[in-house]
C-alpha cells in the first residue's frame, strides 16, 4: 500500500509545481514587472507618416466605463466604423469603471503593460507624461494639420507639458451644469431661476410641496459639477495659483460666501434628505423618474434626458449668478474633458504607431463627429452639422450659445492634484451633508493643500 502511494504522491508534487510554473509564465500572477519601467524621456524620434501598412495590427483602447457599448456608445460606434474602414486594424476595447480604470492604468504603467490608447484623468495623465509613460503626439499633430484645424486650441493646449510635449488630446468637451425638469417648475408656477436669490425662492416653493430641487448623491463625491461652476463666480481662477503657492488661503472671504450659499441651500431643503446614502446613479434615477427638479450632471446625460417623459421641456442651466460674487458671473463650463493618451511603447512599434494615429485621425474626423452627435454627445471638433434643437444635446448647445457666457479654461478640480480635487469634493459635500460648517469645509481643503 505504501509503495503504491509513493509514486502517486511524487506525481502530485510534480503536477503542483508545474502548475505554479505555468501560472507565473503565463503572466496570470506576475509578481514583478517583466519589463523595466519606462523611465527614459518620451520618445523623440519623429514618427514617419507612411501609408498604413496592410499588415494586420491590433491596438488596445481602454475606457473608463464598465460597459463601453452602453455607457460610451459614441466611442464604441466610432471604433466599429473605424474597423470597417480599416479591415487590417483591430481595436480591442477594454472597459472598467472609472476608479478601477485609473488604478489599473497606474499599475499597468508601473509594470510596462499600458494599453495602446486609453482615457485618463488629467492630473494623473500629466504625472504619467512627466514620468515618461506616455507618447508625444506633437509629431502626429504637426503631420495632420487638418486635424489640428478642426480641434479648438484649448482641447489641445490643456494637455501639453511645459517643455512642449503633447501628451494627450481631449476626447470630448466637458460640459457640465444642471439639467432642469421644466414640467416640475411649471407645475408650481416657477421658471428657471437666474440669480441665487431666485433659486432660493424656487427651493422654498418646491420644499413646501415635498419636491427635491437638486438631485445629488454624496456617495459619489465627484458629482459636484454645478458647484464647481459656481465657485468660478467667486474668483476661483484669480485665486487658485496663489493658494497653491501658499501665498493665499482657500479659506478666504469670497470662498466662504460661496460655501455659506451651499449651506443656505441645505437649510432650505434643496437636496434629498438621504443625500448621504445616495450615489450619483441613484440621483440620476431620481431626476429621470421625475422626482427632482434639477440634476447636477453634464452633457453625458443628454440621451437619457431626451428619452425621459419630460425631455421635450427640459433645459440645461449653468447655475445661478451671485450678487456678492467676484468677477464675471456669466460663467459656463465647456472645457476639455479627460484626454486620450497613447502609451510610450506604441512609438517604438512603427506599425502600431501608424494604426493608433489612423484611429486618432478618424476619431477627430467629421464622420466620427456625426456618430458622436447622433449618440447625443458633443464632439471635440468644431462641428458644422445640424443638431436638432429639441434634442437633449440641442438644449446643451442652446445654453452654450447664450451671449456673453464664457467658459473658464478648465474645470476647477482638474487643475489641482487628485488629492486636492478630492478634498474640494469632500468640502462641498460636507456642507451639503451638514457635517461641516462652511469654515470647516474650507479648512479641509487648506489642510490638504498644506500636506502636498
Amino acid at each position: 500500500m505504501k509503495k503504491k502511494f509513493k509514486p502517486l504522491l511524487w506525481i502530485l508534487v510534480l503536477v503542483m509545481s508545474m502548475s505554479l510554473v505555468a501560472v507565473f509564465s503565463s503572466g496570470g500572477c506576475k509578481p514583478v514587472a517583466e519589463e523595466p519601467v519606462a523611465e527614459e524621456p518620451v520618445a523623440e524620434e519623429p514618427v514617419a507618416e507612411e501609408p498604413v501598412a496592410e499588415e494586420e495590427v491590433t491596438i488596445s483602447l481602454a475606457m473608463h466605463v464598465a460597459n463601453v457599448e452602453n455607457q460610451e456608445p459614441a466611442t464604441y460606434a466610432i471604433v466599429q466604423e473605424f474597423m470597417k474602414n480599416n479591415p487590417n486594424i483591430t481595436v480591442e476595447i477594454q472597459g472598467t469603471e472609472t476608479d478601477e480604470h485609473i488604478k489599473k492604468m497606474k499599475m499597468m504603467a508601473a509594470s510596462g503593460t499600458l494599453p495602446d490608447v486609453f482615457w485618463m484623468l488629467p492630473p494623473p495623465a500629466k504625472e504619467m507624461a512627466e514620468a515618461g509613460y506616455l507618447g508625444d503626439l506633437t509629431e502626429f499633430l504637426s503631420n495632420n494639420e487638418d486635424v489640428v484645424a478642426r480641434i479648438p486650441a484649448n482641447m489641445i493646449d490643456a494637455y501639453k507639458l511645459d517643455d512642449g510635449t503633447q501628451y494627450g488630446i481631449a476626447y470630448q468637451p466637458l460640459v457640465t451644469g444642471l439639467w432642469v425638469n421644466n414640467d416640475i417648475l411649471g407645475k408650481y408656477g416657477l421658471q428657471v431661476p437666474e440669480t441665487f436669490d431666485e433659486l432660493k425662492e424656487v427651493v422654498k416653493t418646491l420644499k413646501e410641496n415635498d419636491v427635491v430641487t437638486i438631485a445629488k448623491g454624496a456617495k459619489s463625491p465627484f458629482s459636484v459639477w454645478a458647484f464647481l461652476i459656481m465657485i468660478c463666480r467667486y474668483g476661483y481662477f484669480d485665486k487658485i495659483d496663489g493658494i497653491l503657492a501658499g501665498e493665499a488661503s482657500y479659506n478666504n472671504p469670497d470662498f466662504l460666501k460661496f460655501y455659506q450659499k451651499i449651506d443656505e441651500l441645505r437649510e432650505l431643503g434643496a437636496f434629498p434628505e438621504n443625500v448621504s446614502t445616495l450615489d450619483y446613479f441613484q440621483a440620476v434615477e431620481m431626476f429621470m423618474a421625475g422626482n427632482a427638479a434639477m440634476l447636477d450632471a453634464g452633457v453625458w446625460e443628454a440621451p437619457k434626458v431626451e428619452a425621459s417623459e419630460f425631455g421635450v421641456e427640459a433645459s440645461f442651466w449653468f447655475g445661478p449668478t451671485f450678487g456678492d460674487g467676484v468677477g464675471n458671473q456669466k460663467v459656463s463650463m465647456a472645457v476639455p474633458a479627460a484626454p486620450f493618451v497613447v502609451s510610450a511603447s506604441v512609438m517604438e512599434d512603427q506599425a502600431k504607431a501608424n494604426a493608433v494615429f489612423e484611429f486618432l485621425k478618424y476619431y477627430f474626423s467629421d464622420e466620427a463627429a456625426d456618430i458622436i452627435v447622433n449618440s447625443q454627445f458633443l464632439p471635440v471638433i468644431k462641428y458644422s452639422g445640424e443638431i436638432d434643437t429639441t434634442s437633449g444635446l440641442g438644449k446643451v448647445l442652446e445654453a452654450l450659445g447664450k451671449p456673453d457666457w464664457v467658459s473658464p479654461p478648465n474645470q476647477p478640480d482638474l487643475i489641482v492634484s487628485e488629492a486636492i480635487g478630492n478634498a474640494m469634493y469632500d468640502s462641498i459635500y460636507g456642507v451639503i451633508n451638514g457635517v461641516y460648517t462652511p469654515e470647516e469645509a474650507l479648512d479641509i481643503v487648506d489642510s490638504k493643500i498644506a500636506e502636498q
Partner: protein
Amino acid sequence: MFWLSKKHIAILLMLPALLLYVLYIIIPIIMAFFYSFTKFSGIGEPEFVGLKNYARLLKDPLFLVSLKNTFIILAVSFVLLLVGSFLLAVLLNTKIKGANAAKALIFSPAIIAPIVVGLIWSFILDPYTGLINMFLEKGGLDFLALKWIGGVTLTPYVVGVVYTWQVLGFITTIFIAGLKLIPQNIYEAASIDGANPRQELFFITIPMLKQTFLINVVLIITGCFKIFEVVFQLTGGGPNHLSEVLVTYMYNTSFQYSEYGYGMSIAVVTFLLSIMFFSVYLLVIMKRKEE
C-alpha cells in the same frame, strides 16, 4: 512509520503553499512597510520621507475617526459574536428538531459575498427608503426610526451588528465542532455527581473550549480589522469619512487621493494593531493557563 511523516517530505509538500503565502502575503506586507516611508502617487518613483507619514497619522482627525469606528465595531461584534455564537452552538448541539436546518440557515450569511451583504443591508437600513424605518413608521414608532446609516453616530454600531449577522454562523460552526470534541463521559460523570446544566456549562463546557474560544477570538479580532466591503457598500465611509474604518480609510487614501505612501502607513498601523490585540489576548490566556 508511514513514509509521509518524514520531515523532508512534509516540507516538500508544504513548499508550494508556502511559496504562494510568501509571494502574496509576506512580500506585500514588506512592500507596504517600505512604501509607508515614502510619498508616492502611484506614478513614477516614490520619494523617501522617513517617518513623516506616521507623524501625520497622529494629527490626522480622519485617522482617529476611523480608529474609533474600528474599535466600536470590534467591541460590538466581539460581545455579540462570542456570547451569541457560543450560546447558539450550545443550543444547536442538543438534539432538538430542526437543528440541522437551523445550522444551515444560520451559516448561510457566511457564504454571501461581503459586498452583497452591504448592498442587502443598505436596502434595509437606509433611513428614508429602508425596510426597518418603513415598518417602524407604519407601526407608529416613528421615534425609533433613527438614522442607522448616513448619519454621524450610529453607523459603526450598525456595522458591528451587520458583521455579527454575517459571521455568526461561521463562528457558531467552530464552537459546535469544539463541543463535539468534548467527551460525553465527562458530562455523564458530572451528572452522576449531581451537577446541574448550569454547572456543566461553566465548569466543563467553557473550560474545555478554551482553545476554541482562542481561535474564535482571533478570527473576530482579525475579521473586524479587515472589514471593508460592508462599510464601503453601506456608506462608502461617509458622510464625509465619519463612518470610515481603518481599511476603508486606507483604501480611500491610497486609491481615491492617490497618496499611496500615507495609505500604506495606515495599513501598517492596522496590521500592527491587530497583532497587538491578538498578542495581548494570547498573553492573558497563557498567564491563566500557568496559574
